[in-house]
């Protein structure tokens, strides 16, 4: 068995695996390997050489058994992320993608099915440097974030196919209907990046392109909905989330296909990045896309408490 240490923020994980998976494990986890450190958790992948099936154990408990190689690798990616954020308490862990535009990060928070991974992949294909499509930690030093580097995963039911991506390394690390691959332009994890913009993706089949600027309260609601480690933090991350939401401008982009975004949305992002606008100036610029605020809150959260039914509240 081979053994490596994987690290993210203040967490360490020991991963043991059979020699037959060595090459692919190195491809999957090269960017989060740590040379030393005592692990908090252990993951063990075992192979039944007779059946060529695999099992995954976490801290001695069997999580999966009898799975095929490619399914095992996909499941292992999820287990590694889960193990690295379960006890993480150095910041607010979000289900989110992230790319770099110049030296500054763009955060793409979102739950399953909103098009987060696809938009992250598309941006990585349009000249933005890839950080992650899965997990970001908002650090107490607002507005800095850290990204958990892992390969892009495009699932068989999603709105984008690898064929649409022109600048990607299109060779999937696994076979099958789900593709796992690294973009060509990947920024290795390192120092935390300051976050210039928050984008909330909303892919809806057949939808018209619409960009909406969000106010700070709406942004806080959206970030909270993506928080995956609230219970590890003394204030559930409330302070960091609200500080981020006040500081970093946010937009929601609804789209029905990437053809709508080419030359429009990507250009807007590059304009903001290349202009080196301040947070205040960026927020000011994005008021161009502000719609009725009460209506926006209703769409973005189930937790609306608005006594004013006429939608005339001001932000």
């Amino acid at each position, binding site marked *: 068995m081979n053994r490596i240490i994987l690290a993210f923020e203040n967490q360490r994980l020991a991963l043991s695996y059979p020699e037959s998976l060595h090459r692919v494990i190195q491809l999957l986890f090269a960017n989060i390997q740590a040379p030393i450190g005592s692990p908090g958790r252990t993951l063990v992948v075992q192979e039944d050489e007779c059946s060529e099936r695999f099992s995954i154990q976490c801290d001695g408990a069997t999580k999966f058994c009898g799975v095929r190689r490619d399914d095992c690798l996909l499941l292992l990616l999820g287990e590694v992320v889960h193990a690295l954020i379960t006890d993480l308490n150095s910041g607010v862990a979000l289900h989110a993608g992230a790319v770099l535009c110049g030296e500054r990060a763009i955060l793409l928070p979102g739950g399953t099915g909103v098009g987060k991974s696809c938009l992250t992949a598309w941006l990585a294909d349009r000249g933005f440097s890839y950080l992650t499509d899965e997990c970001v930690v908002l650090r107490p030093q607002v507005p800095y974030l850290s990204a958990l580097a892992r390969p892009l995963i495009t699932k068989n039911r999603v709105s984008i196919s690898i064929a649409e991506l022109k600048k990607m390394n299109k060779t999937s690390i696994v076979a099958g209907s789900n593709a796992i691959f690294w973009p060509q332009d990947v920024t290795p994890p390192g120092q935390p990046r300051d976050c210039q913009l928050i984008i909330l993706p909303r892919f809806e089949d057949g939808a018209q392109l619409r960009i909406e600027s969000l*106010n*700070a*309260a*709406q942004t*806080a*609601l959206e970030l*909270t*909905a993506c928080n995956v480690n*609230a*219970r590890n933090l003394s*204030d*559930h991350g*409330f302070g960091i989330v*609200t500080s981020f*939401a*006040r500081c970093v401008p946010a937009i929601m982009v609804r789209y029905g296909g990437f053809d709508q975004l080419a030359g429009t949305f990507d250009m807007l992002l590059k304009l903001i990045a290349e202009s080196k606008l301040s947070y205040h100036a960026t927020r000011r610029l994005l008021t161009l896309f502000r719609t009725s*605020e*009460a209506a926006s*809150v209703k769409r973005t*959260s189930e*937790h*609306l*408490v*608005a*006594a*004013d*039914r006429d939608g005339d*509240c*001001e*932000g």
Partner: protein
Amino acid sequence: MEHQSILNLIPMPLGGVELADMEGEWVLYSYERETMVYLNDSAHVIWRLCDGKRTVKEITDVLASAFPDAEKKITIDVSETIQRLMQEGILKLGEA
């Protein structure tokens, strides 16, 4: 729950709730429910008046005296807001 039936009850904030000013709008976070709730200006004023001492009627009267032209709307708003905050686990109603 109709407004009339709660008029004499006292809305009481439950523990473990934190309020933040988000540039003129407000969010409440419930530690127990792990949910965040958005308050617009009107809802925020109502929340502030829920001090565990005033009844629903007294809260309505305070607002109606400040905005006499909107008394009917205020009555509905206070009732709906309090009930929504109850649904979110942020308030409970107690006997006067």
